[in-house]
């Protein structure tokens, strides 16, 4: 501070003295030069005015000469005297003459001073403004016969810093003025600008004979004659100019004096700096450095005392020389216990990593810094982790004299890391296992499969045993989900117990399991395993005092990685399982040649069905239904037929099952229904109204929202609609909303019929829930009725049930009159069968209905 202060004082005094000398010198110069300044200023302006006048004179002179010269042009003389009607020759002369750029236009006047032509040679021309002035001048020149230059007082010119002049020369013939040529010139003024950017001079050309012009030029103006013209240039200077010139003089003087004083003051300043300031500054610097070092040491000590990290300083023998309080807190020792001890003995214990110890030793010996995590013991008992940084301390000569160790407790972080690792493992396990059974899940299976097949040993034989529990839904529905979970866990237990060490048990979802045989998985071994599993699973288990029975179907596929892809092998096992289900469940099916062929046939048929659907080959056939008593037609059942291009008419038994497997039954039903509805509408249009039309529908189709839309959009009004549902529907899992949709259909006036009643073993409870309008007796019962008492009894029973529920009965498969009479006699209301009519095309139906109508009309007559 003192150094800076003395510096400031020294330089302040020096600069102040310098400024003082300058100011007083300037004042002295100002006072001395003031009497001469005004005169100098005036001379400067006069000089400037003369230069401007000379410039204007130089500008005007060519134009004056040109005007005088052109006035002698013979063609112009002839024109003025009337000998030439036009001044074309003069115009040619102008165009061939290089005119001064100041010239803007020419006026020609005759002997009376009347303008007889004018010629514009510059875009700056102002003919309209100047004509009157030019005419005045022409009259003057005609009277004097002398060339004359005259000014024009123009507001525009004053504003724009320019001025227009008229130069007139008499046009003489034999010495007599017979006309006047007036030239207009445009004189720009150069304005003198000074440092503050303002215009300081205002120049104008005035006519000395014009008092007005002189007055308008203003008092105090300096007038300079313009030689060639007889005019004068009047220059008026702004007051600021004089001030500026004075200021410029003073500034120049000050600058000169400043330049003169600069060297002595600079020398004085340099000497003062060398002899006074620099020694003082060096001493001040040493003091400051010492103060800063002391301060730093204090600050470091305070920081170390307050630091959260443990700090330890040892000698080269690693004996503790100093430590901070944090070290005591972390290590659990007191200051007395610590001092002079070796940190390794004090802190490390049996679980401290030997490798870490070795690394620390090596670093100390090499005097290299090291950072490492080490397990320490608090007071010899409690383990804790520290992150330790050791660095060697060197003196000013670079010699090591000790070590400094800084450590912090990282036990919490170590614990968090361990927890995170455990959590991650648990999540990974969950991602690959079924939570309920603990078995690997489908993802685990897929991953394992891919890993095994990624093995170079492609010849490895694998087997997949696909397991699906039979009627597991019933367990869930009747005994609750806990019972279901128990069953699943029991199956998992069986799998774990029965499989070999290389086999992987998998729950792939719901009641589906897989045993993946990864080593030597031949069909025989898989079949043995599956059979054993089937046997175990078929054993009943007890739940809440009740015995639970369920079965399982098994599909087995085996191959090696190089032969089939993962997905193919799984598909094959699925196909085998499906076949097992088809064959009545509770059995084991291996995917062999026969099964493969069966699958291929299904695939081929499926492809044909797809093509047939695309081509619209599925058509509705109509089988009429008759009133049992009157034998009059009361309706028709719509039956799907495949009109194959090669095979002809294909019956549903050949394609319905495949279509159902491929989930194409719904679309097929939809297509056939749409066509049939259109046909029924056509019948109405033909006047052949069918009393009722019935469609076979699946449970899925009944739940299809589009069915309701199609019903609403049916294009006929009189024919009633009914849907026939297989009795077996009620044995299977019913789709959601089935009951709801049946109600909606009933609300829309449709009737519901149970098809093939007597073949599906539906419970009466289910029947009552559906509340059908008609029961259609299975045709096998009708066939057997004439010869089998059981069949007849069954029929009677069904009719009895129907009567008790107030439901109508239709007999299918009526092929003979005996059938018809018997069914009528037993109480059936409606008959359907080959005895009356085979299913027929729409066109045949039209003919049939026409014939029926005619027949009954004849009977009526």
């Amino acid at each position, binding site marked *: 501070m003192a150094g800076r202060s003395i510096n400031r004082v020294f330089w302040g005094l020096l600069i102040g003295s310098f400024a003082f000398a300058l100011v007083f010198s300037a004042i002295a110069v100002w006072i001395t030069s003031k009497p001469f300044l005004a005169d100098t200023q005036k001379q400067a302006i006069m000089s400037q005015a003369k230069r401007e006048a000379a410039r204007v004179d130089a500008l005007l002179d060519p134009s004056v000469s040109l005007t005088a010269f052109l006035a*002698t042009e*013979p*063609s112009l*003389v*002839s024109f*003025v*005297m*009337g*000998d030439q009607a036009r001044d074309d020759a003069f115009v040619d002369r102008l165009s061939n003459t290089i005119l001064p750029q100041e010239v803007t236009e020419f006026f020609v006047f*005759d*002997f*009376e001073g009347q303008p007889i032509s004018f010629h514009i040679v510059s875009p700056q021309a102002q003919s309209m403004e100047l004509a009157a002035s030019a005419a005045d001048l022409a009259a003057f020149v005609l009277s004097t016969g002398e060339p004359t230059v005259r000014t024009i007082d123009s507001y525009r010119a004053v504003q724009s810093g320019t001025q227009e002049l008229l130069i007139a020369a008499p046009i*003489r*013939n*034999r010495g*007599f003025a*017979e006309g006047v040529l007036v030239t207009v010139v445009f004189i720009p003024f150069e304005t003198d600008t000074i440092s503050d950017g303002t215009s300081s001079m205002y120049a104008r050309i005035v006519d000395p004979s014009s008092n007005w012009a002189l007055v308008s030029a203003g008092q105090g103006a300096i007038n300079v004659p313009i030689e060639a013209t007889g005019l004068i240039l009047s220059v008026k200077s702004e007051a600021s100019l004089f001030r500026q010139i004075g200021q410029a003089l003073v500034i120049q003087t000050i600058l000169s004096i400043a330049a003169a004083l600069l060297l002595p003051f600079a020398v004085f300043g340099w000497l003062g700096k060398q002899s006074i300031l620099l020694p003082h500054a060096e001493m001040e610097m040493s003091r400051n450095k010492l103060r800063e070092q002391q301060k730093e040491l204090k600050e470091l000590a305070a920081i170390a005392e307050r630091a959260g990290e443990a700090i330890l300083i040892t000698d080269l023998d690693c004996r503790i020389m100093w430590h901070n309080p944090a070290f005591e807190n972390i290590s659990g020792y007191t200051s007395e216990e610590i001092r002079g001890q070796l940190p390794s003995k004090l802190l490390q214990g049996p679980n401290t990593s030997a490798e870490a110890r070795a690394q620390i030793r090596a670093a100390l010996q090499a005097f290299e810094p090291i950072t490492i995590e080490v397990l320490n013991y608090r007071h010899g008992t409690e383990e804790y982790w520290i992150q330790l940084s050791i660095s060697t301390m060197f003196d000013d000569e670079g010699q090591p004299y000790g070590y400094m160790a800084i450590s912090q407790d990282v036990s919490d972080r170590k614990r968090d890391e361990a927890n995170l690792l455990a959590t991650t493992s648990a999540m990974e396990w969950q991602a690959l296992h079924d939570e309920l059974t603990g078995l690997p899940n489908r993802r685990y299976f897929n991953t394992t499969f891919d890993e095994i097949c990624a093995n170079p040993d492609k010849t490895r034989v694998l087997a997949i045993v696909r397991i699906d529990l039979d009627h597991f839904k019933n367990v869930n529905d009747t005994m609750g989900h806990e019972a279901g979970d128990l069953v699943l866990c029991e199956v998992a237990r069986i799998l774990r117990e029965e499989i070999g060490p290389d086999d992987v048990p998998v729950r792939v979802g719901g009641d589906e399991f897989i045993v993946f045989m990864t080593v030597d998985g031949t069909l025989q071994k898989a079949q043995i395993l599956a059979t054993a599993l089937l046997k175990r699973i078929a054993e009943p288990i007890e739940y809440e005092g009740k015995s639970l029975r369920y079965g399982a179907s098994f599909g087995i596929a085996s191959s090696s990685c190089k032969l089939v892809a993962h997905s193919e092998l799984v598909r094959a096992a699925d196909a085998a399982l499906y076949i097992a289900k088809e064959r009545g469940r509770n059995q084991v099916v291996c995917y062999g040649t026969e099964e493969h062929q069966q699958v291929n046939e299904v695939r081929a048929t499926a492809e044909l069905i797809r093509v047939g659907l695309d081509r619209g080959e599925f058509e509705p056939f109509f089988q009429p239904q008759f009133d049992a008593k009157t034998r009059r037609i009361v309706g028709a059942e719509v039956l799907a037929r495949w009109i194959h291009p090669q095979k002809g008419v294909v019956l549903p038994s050949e394609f319905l099952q495949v279509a159902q497997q491929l989930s194409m039954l719904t679309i097929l039903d939809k297509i056939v229904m749409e066509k049939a509805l259109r046909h029924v509408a056509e019948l109405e249009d033909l006047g052949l109204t069918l009393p009722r039309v019935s469609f076979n529908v699946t449970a899925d189709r009944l739940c299809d929202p589009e069915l309701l839309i199609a019903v609403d959009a049916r294009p006929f009004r009189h024919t009633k609609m009914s849907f026939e549902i297989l009795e077996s529907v009620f044995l299977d899992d019913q789709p959601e909303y089935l009951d709801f949709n049946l109600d909606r259909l009933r609300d829309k006036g449709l009737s519901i019929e149970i098809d093939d009643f007597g073949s599906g073993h539906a419970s009466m409870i289910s029947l009552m829930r559906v509340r059908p309008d008609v029961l259609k007796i299975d045709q096998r019962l009708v066939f057997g009725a004439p010869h089998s008492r059981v069949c007849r009894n069954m029929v009677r029973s069904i009719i009895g049930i129907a009567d008790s529920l107030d439901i109508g009965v239709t007999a299918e498969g009526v092929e003979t009159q005996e059938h018809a009479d018997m069914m009528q006699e037993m109480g059936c209301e409606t008959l359907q069968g080959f005895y009356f009519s085979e299913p027929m095309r729409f066109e045949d139906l039209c003919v049939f209905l026409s014939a029926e109508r005619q027949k009954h009309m004849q009977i009526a007559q």
Partner: protein
Amino acid sequence: MFKFFRSYLILLVALAAPASGETLRLYIDADYSISRHGAEAIELGVTTALSEVGSRAGGFDLEVLPRDHRANSKRSLATMRNYLRDPKGLAVIGGVHSPPYLTNKRFINENGVLLLLPWSAAGPITRADDGVENWIYRLSVDDTKAGPFLVARALSHAHCARTALLLVDTGWGRANKGTMRTAFETAQAQEPYVFMFPSSIGAASARTLVQSIARVSPDCVIMLASAAEGALLLNELHKELPSTKVISHWGILAADFEDRIAPATLSNMDLEVLQTCGLEQERQKAPALKRALDLASDAQSPFHSLSDIPASTGFVHGYDLTRLLLAAIEQSAQASDWAALSIQQRRAAVRLALTRLEAPVDGILKTYAEPFAPYSPAYRDAHEALGLGDLCMASFDETGRLVLVDHSPLGHL
């Protein structure tokens, strides 16, 4: 008896005439500045003729108003306009130059300016355009005849083989260019070299022009020029082509021609100038000329011969033309309503009388019997008082006086 009847008529006219003091004005539209001699000579001729009748005719005092047009057609036009506005302006007597009347001819004829020309020679002046009345009358050389006359003079008399035409670039010069070239064609002579010069030509341009002429080496030069430029050109021709014969229209004599050129130069040059035959009358000591000179003379300026009068052609023609005008006025005044006529009607009446002068009028050059006739395209010389037979050629003698070189009638050429 005749004298008595005549005196009676004059008395009747005097009684019918307006009271003394009413004036009609004769404007003299001439170049009093450049061709001052010509203008003054014309004015002298006019005033001499007027003085014979006491400056009174048709019952009116006649006043002469000289107006200087300085050879400027526009100034001449201004004079015409002033005359037309003047209720006393009866007629305008023209000056030496043709261009003012060539330029303003349509204005003159359309507005009824009664113009009498004692000197201007350009042919088209007295030939009106179709459908326009012709108000211009001339007692002077007619260039339609003078041009061919000068060409004939060059070809037949001087036997020129290579002729240069040196013509002022005005209407006068341009009109003569056509007639002269036609004359050359008619004579089947070599086509002349034509050089035109502006009326305001200076010395330098004159020298350049003559040098151009010298390059074609003509043996004759036919020149149409006013006095000033004629003197310039002759001086230059004398330097460049001293032996070349120069045949000049009389325009050079209108002004101070003799002052601009040395007598020795004139006499040394082979120069001929067109003239009317006044000199012939003088040679024959014609009494009319004698009387006119006597009337024109006064104590300060006694005129013993025409050569005493500068540009004497103007005097002769002015005198004769004024006499014809006076006769026309008197003849018009015989009409009973003469005194009541407007100035326009009087102009028309005098114009009519000019073309139907009932009595011959004695002049210096000759006695004029029906000098003018009604103009028609078929009679294009109707307004010409002089004909080819009135033209002569003159040259300068050692003292600078004009002398006839050939007094045979020009019509014989």
